[in-house]
């Protein structure tokens, strides 16, 4: 019993210690933190009143090296920190000077000469020259590690030289119409030539990172924040905000709430805010919802009987889909108006041609007799005509005698895919066709192997449409089934390819646009890429933080993920100030009260325990 008593006593002492530690921890996080909440904001305000623009983001940075980064956030950061040769006008997407002030091509279309500006300095004080640009391109051409992200831009380059600090000469193997759309960040040679392995170097150790864009990258903490400081010496003029911070909210609701509270100034969502979020934000008088035509198309891709370049068959697409009538019938049974009204709830435009209307010079619409309008009866007739008739159970039967059941590949992370998938089940079910939704986190594997019947597909279109057009050429097919091609959907059509080659060699803008439209028409008729909608970019910002900001295109355009640095560079801080929020004073008061209540409660609790112990001792 003696021992027991002693031990008991000791354990109790220990328990009290633990209790005290717990109380201390609780006090620290609940009590202390809340009343002192305004501290950071005060600290920031004291800092010569510097204006901070905070943007909520969700996507992780894959790499900060321009040679490796492919994700939207990383490449946007590169747009802000490095100059590219050219840029796109925010008004109407036409090409404007970047690091290059002028450019011209030789009569044989094979030599391009760029004049490099002499008023762009790297943030460490060195002059940015043509030599830097030549070195960047040459490194990408010679080192496979450096070609990881943007190698396709230099694939057709013969030779790149810099005869003088202001002159860059690029020799091509074949004519290439995209020479004013080389979206490659030019890096400072004097910094980057010290790197030994471009495949491994992530450019995220030595801050600030030397650049010459409108902002300088000063801090990066993975999945927490990215901080950029305004480059006061930027040749186009310094940004109006002093700092730009990308802050992580992995949860979109958290990001929207943060905007509503004023923790951040801007939210784009990934890929956009949901209709419900947009609707609720509209009611806030300090928030502006920017619901602008997007740059994406959203399509239903049909497996065209995937093949490799060597003619070997790949995957297992349903044979009935080789019949154009079947493909057209399937699309005619898709009620695009419902897709817009119910799934996007009006935040999208009904699909037509391949390129969204935002790129007006390339936008194309089918003629009245070409159009595959919503018409389930006609769809049923087409299927009957193609020989896929209903059996006794009301199911359409394939040539192999089995009921048709299409596997539709969908992205598990995209709510729209899943929603439209459920509609497809019912629409096509009415036609007598079964649907199996195959929703995956990562669709790459079945996709690249051609193991699907239909798939939800979508791309962001650049001001120069070359890339999204190139992914449907035969040349993009993988060489053998074991290899990977740049192809999107295994389309290989001779007529389309001829048109593609013609537009690539056409340096006259209007002529080229005309050929592009013919390509879109061809693509529409083939029925392999059925564009259902052009989703809007739905984003929101606080008008009490940002007074004005440039959208692209200027009239009705998006803010996040522009081709260029216009939005963040042009953003003007509102008078009411930085990220401090209007409700903060009430928040602080209530916070202090709540914190105090917790502390008092804990105090009473501990006191009671004490007294109980004291009673015990008497």
């Amino acid at each position: 019993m003696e021992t027991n008593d002693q031990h008991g006593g000791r354990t109790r002492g220990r328990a009290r210690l633990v209790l005290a530690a717990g109380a201390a921890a609780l006090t620290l996080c609940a009590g202390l933190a809340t009343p002192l909440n305004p501290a950071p904001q005060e600290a920031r305000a004291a800092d010569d009143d510097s204006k901070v623009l905070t943007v909520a983001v969700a996507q992780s940075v894959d790499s900060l090296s321009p040679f490796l980064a492919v994700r939207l956030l990383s490449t946007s950061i590169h747009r802000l920190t490095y100059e590219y040769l050219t840029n796109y006008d925010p008004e109407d997407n036409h090409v404007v000077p970047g690091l290059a002030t002028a450019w011209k091509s030789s009569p044989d279309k094979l030599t391009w000469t760029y004049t490099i500006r002499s008023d762009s300095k790297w943030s460490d004080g060195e002059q940015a020259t043509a030599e830097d640009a030549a070195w960047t391109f040459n490194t990408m051409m010679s080192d496979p590690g450096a070609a990881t992200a943007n190698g396709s831009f230099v694939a057709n380059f013969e030779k790149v030289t810099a005869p003088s600090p202001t002159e860059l000469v690029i020799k091509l193997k074949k004519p290439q119409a995209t020479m004013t759309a080389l979206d490659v960040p030019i890096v400072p040679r004097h910094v980057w030539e010290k790197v030994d392995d471009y495949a491994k170097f992530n450019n995220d150790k030595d801050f600030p990172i030397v650049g010459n864009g409108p902002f300088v990258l000063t801090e990066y903490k993975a999945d927490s924040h990215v901080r950029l400081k305004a480059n006061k010496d930027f040749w186009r003029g310094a940004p109006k905000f002093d700092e730009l911070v990308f802050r992580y909210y992995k949860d979109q609701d958290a990001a929207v709430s943060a905007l509503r509270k004023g923790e951040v100034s801007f939210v784009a969502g990934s890929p956009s805010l949901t209709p419900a979020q947009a609707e609720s934000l509209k009611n806030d008088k300090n928030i502006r919802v920017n619901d602008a035509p997007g740059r994406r198309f959203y399509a239903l891709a049909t497996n065209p009987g995937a093949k490799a370049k060597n003619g070997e068959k790949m995957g297992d697409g349903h044979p009935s889909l080789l019949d154009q009538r079947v493909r057209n019938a399937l699309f005619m049974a898709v009620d695009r108006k419902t897709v817009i009204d119910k799934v996007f709830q009006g935040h999208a435009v009904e699909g037509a041609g391949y390129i969204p209307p935002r790129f007006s010079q390339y936008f194309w619409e089918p003629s009245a007799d070409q159009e595959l309008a919503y018409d389930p009866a006609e769809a049923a007739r087409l299927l009957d005509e193609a020989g896929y008739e209903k059996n006794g159970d009301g199911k359409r039967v394939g040539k192999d005698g089995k009921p048709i059941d299409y596997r539709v590949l969908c992205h598990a992370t995209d709510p729209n895919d899943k929603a439209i998938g459920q509609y497809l089940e019912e629409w096509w079910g009415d036609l007598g066709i079964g649907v199996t939704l195959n929703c995956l986190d990562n669709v790459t594997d079945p996709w690249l192997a051609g193991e699907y019947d239909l798939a939800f597909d979508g791309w962001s279109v650049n001001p120069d449409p070359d890339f999204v057009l190139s992914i449907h050429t035969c040349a993009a097919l993988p060489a053998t089934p074991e290899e990977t091609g740049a192809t999107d959907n295994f389309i290989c059509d001779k007529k389309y390819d001829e048109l593609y080659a013609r537009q690539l060699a056409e340096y006259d803008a209007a002529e080229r646009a005309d050929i592009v439209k013919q390509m879109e028409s061809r693509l529409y008729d083939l029925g392999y890429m059925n564009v259902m909608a052009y989703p809007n970019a739905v984003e929101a910002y606080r008008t009490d933080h940002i007074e004005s900001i440039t959208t692209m295109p200027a009239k009705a355009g998006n803010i996040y993920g522009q081709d260029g640095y216009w939005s963040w560079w042009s953003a003007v801080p509102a008078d009411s100030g930085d990220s401090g929020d209007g409700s903060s004073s009430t928040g602080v008061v209530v916070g202090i009260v709540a914190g105090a209540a917790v502390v008092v409660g804990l105090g009473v609790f501990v006191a009671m325990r004490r007294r109980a112990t004291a009673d015990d001792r008497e």
Partner: protein
Amino acid sequence: MTSDATSASVGASTGAAAGPVKDGPAAARGPRGGRGATAYPRYVAGKVAGAAVSLLAVLVTSFFLFRLIPGDPVKFMTGGRQVSAEQLAVYREQFGLDLPLWQQFTDYCGKALTGDLGTSYQFNAPVVDKITEALPNTLLLTGTAFVLYTVLGIVLGTRSAWRNGGFGDRFHTGLALTLYSLPSFWLGLLLIVTLSVGIGPLPGLFPTGGMESGGGEEGFAYAVDVAHHLVLPVVTLVAVEYGQTLLVTRSALLDEMGSDYLTTARAKGLRDDLVRRRHAVPNALLPTVTLIFINLGRTVAGVILVETVFSWPGLGGLFYQALSVPDLPLVQGLFFVFAAAVIVMNTLADLIYPLFDPRVGR
């Protein structure tokens, strides 16, 4: 994590006791049986060896289990780009994917022993770096929550047992069971809606997510900023976790209070209060101690949901992100860390238990 698929510990702990809880003491009886001090080192050696075997087994599982995930990582890395067979081969060689599976495995094990867990596919950085980057954040969150729910659970559990059957007991047991039944992610979302966005006249008091404002705070201001971000995720974790500790403490205490030696003590004329405090509580805390350590390990692994809901930049979010690629080296590394946390904590519980046991004559 209680709202995940962990065992049915709440109920089990009140009855025949959950496996680990009862087992700790049972296993620990080894050194007690009169063999005295010399038995303890041997006992320690046995437990440590067992843990080492478990860790090795985890290493093996993490390697093979995740090879089953469909998806060719090389295709993911090069997705959407034209890649020739040669380039693919270069990639495969670079990540050691061209070797036969057994050789990949021996390489993996060999490297793992030297602390190298490979290179993450998507971040192009050593897995160990990614993990050490996120680990402190997870530890901060789980550590704070752990201290709070343990203290809360023990204190309330003790009080409940003393006032067994009274209103306080019924109230606290009921509340603990109810909170334990809530999906933690759902509770987190509701907390965000009410306390961080603000509802009606109630303004938002806490940040909606993340770990810091990123406003360049330093020193004390930074600590306060982080603490402020910590409140809601910690409250969520504590709410769903403390019930288990409460119930185990309570039932262990009830169990103890029925023991013969307490009757003896009472018969000796000691006051009821004193008997409970001096004798029952310390002994009843023993199974709780085991549970505490096991919980600590499990909380690290189970924090995935709370980290997701509150955008906390920790291991959980990293794991979820890695799975969708699949970023095999990162997934393997994280799985190993999660399992190792549980194993190490279990072993610690086993090791510490005899030291805490006042009945061990040492």
